[in-house]
């Protein structure tokens, strides 16, 4: 079984170097260089961006046409068995072992991951308790609701205590309450030192749980870094938090031909980086105290679209310059 030393928290949990993968005529990934850090990482991208291909390469289900893939410090797919024993995967699809009840699903998953029958059963009970399926453990899984199935798949993914958890659309199809429960669970698991790769189309989920973001577009990495930097905006919009009433500052900025608006005690101004000095001058002339001055963070949806437009000439042409 796995003899590799536990990976350092500062090491990337997965690294891709010059990875390319083609399916027939379709270029799924093109020269991808990427380090996925430990922690909670959201993998974003429009449909067909290459997220599923990325996960398949990380799981050793496919072999890259070019480049190298390392997961938990081990080359893939050469060390697939060792790596998969340390990885938990929750597929996007409605996948379950046929004909088993809830507990047996998890026990089977644990045994496949290398646990002894006794350990598997004991861990399966714990995993089901963790995922809130204690009352349903002896019910046939085929009769579970969608939310219960998602939680069951999460229990199957974590039952063997993985170091890396790959979750493909874990909140797909869940109602708001179920989504909140699922995200709570993911945070709870990540808090125990498990690195999580989370692929989702629900951007608020990423905002809720992730520290880092990877944005894939047309088989390439558009952005990889912290969530904060991802939302930091294009550098053309600034947030000024003032002491007291922001209205005088807004009036003066408008008079100086800057587009601006107020948001509570903040004034949001559109200006280039060269104009920052001028903004400070207007603040001083207005006589307001400035508590904070910095780039305005975008909501994740806006940031998502902006990053995609940077890479995609078609989107850029359709939507104008970001």
């Amino acid at each position, binding site marked *: 079984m796995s003899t590799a030393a536990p990976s350092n928290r500062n090491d990337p949990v997965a690294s891709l170097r010059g990875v390319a993968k083609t399916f027939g005529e379709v270029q799924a990934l093109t020269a991808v260089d990427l380090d996925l850090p430990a922690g909670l990482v959201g993998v974003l991208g429009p449909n067909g961006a290459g997220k599923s291909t990325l996960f398949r390469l990380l799981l050793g289900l496919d072999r890259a046409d070019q480049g190298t893939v390392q997961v938990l410090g081990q080359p893939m797919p050469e060390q697939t068995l060792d790596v998969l024993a340390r990885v938990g995967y929750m597929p996007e699809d409605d996948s379950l072992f046929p004909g088993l009840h809830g507990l047996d699903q998890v026990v089977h998953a644990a045994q*496949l991951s*290398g646990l002894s029958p006794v350990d598997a059963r004991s861990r399966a009970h714990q995993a089901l308790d963790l995922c809130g399926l204690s009352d349903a453990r002896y019910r046939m899984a085929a009769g579970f609701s969608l939310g219960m199935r998602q939680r069951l798949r999460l229990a199957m993914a974590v039952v063997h205590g993985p170091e890396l958890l790959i979750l493909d659309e874990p909140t797909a199809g869940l109602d708001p309450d179920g989504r909140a429960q699922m995200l709570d669970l993911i945070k709870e698991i990540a808090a125990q030192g498990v690195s999580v790769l989370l692929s989702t189309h629900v951007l608020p989920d990423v905002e809720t749980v992730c520290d880092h973001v990877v944005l894939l577009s047309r088989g390439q990495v558009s952005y990889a870094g912290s969530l904060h930097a991802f939302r930091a905006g294009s550098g053309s919009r600034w947030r000024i938090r003032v002491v007291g009433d922001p209205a005088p500052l807004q009036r003066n900025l408008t008079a100086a031909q800057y587009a601006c608006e107020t948001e509570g005690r903040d004034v949001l101004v559109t200006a280039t980086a060269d104009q920052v000095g001028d903004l400070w001058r207007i603040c001083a002339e207005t006589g307001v105290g400035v508590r904070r001055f910095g780039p305005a963070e975008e909501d994740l949806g806006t940031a998502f679209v902006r990053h995609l437009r940077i890479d995609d000439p078609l989107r850029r042409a359709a939507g104008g310059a970001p």
Partner: protein
Amino acid sequence: MTEPVKSAPPLVFEPGGYAKFSGQQVPLRQRLQSLIGVFARDAFRATPAKLGAALYLLAPLCLAAWLVVRSYLPDLPVAIGGDGDALSLWKFSKIPTAGQVHCDLQALETAFAVNSFLLLLGQATQIAPLLARDAHQGALLLYFSRPVLRSHYLLARLAAATSIGSLLVALPSLLLILVALSQHGLQPGGCPWPGLTGALWWLALMLAVVVCAVVVALATSLVALAAGVLVRNPSAAPLAMGGLVLGSLTVSWILQAAYGRQGLARALDLHHALQAPWFLLTWLLQPSAPPKPVLQVMLLGLVIWVLLAALGWWLLQRFLRNPPLGKGRA
């Protein structure tokens, strides 16, 4: 002082919550064994499979009980063998012919003849949809995203199907041999040698039963799984396999009717071709027993069957190299 009651906690965690696993992992071979166990239980999960297996095993049990009871009745002694061919006790998974057992067991014998055919058909149709079903329901993705070799997955499926199939084929025959031995000792029933040699001969017969049962069940499983992989539809797979068996039977009947060459026709009929290993081992144990032309024809059937199984193996390997790991529909 009491704690205020929280209105709706998002989720109740058991004490301890999530914890990393700190135990030992079992070796790959043990994982394969557990996989075989799960697949064996999987094969018996459906009600028709349970019912079929129960009926198949119930018949020889009833017969064995009947033979034991009859042996205590002085007016109707049971004389198994007699004409010098003990092989008739077990070949084709049938009971002794009515001529060999001096009581009216014609109806049971017919039932067994039908059973031996239904077993093949039943086993094949049960096994055929398994791979297609796993692919359709997304279970393949669950298996292959765990530390499980693809070859182990296939081996486990084959081992589970083969062990159940061979058990069902071998058990009735072994039971009848044991009943015959308990009733008549080593000598009656066609054993040409007395004493220890005779005992070894009987032992060889029983081993032959097991070997033949395994060959039959393995070949059936391979072709059935391959049929399922070709069709890739869990609902259509049993039809495909059933069609293959019935089609070969029909060809055999047509040839038989047209040319009257019963043996040769049967070589093309997969149901009867499965009897080839029995004939081969019969001949090895007792070279004078089966007529040579029949043996040749049966061997031809065995060759056809082995070729089909080899083709099945190749198809399964191709399937596993690029398995459908797409959308699951549990």
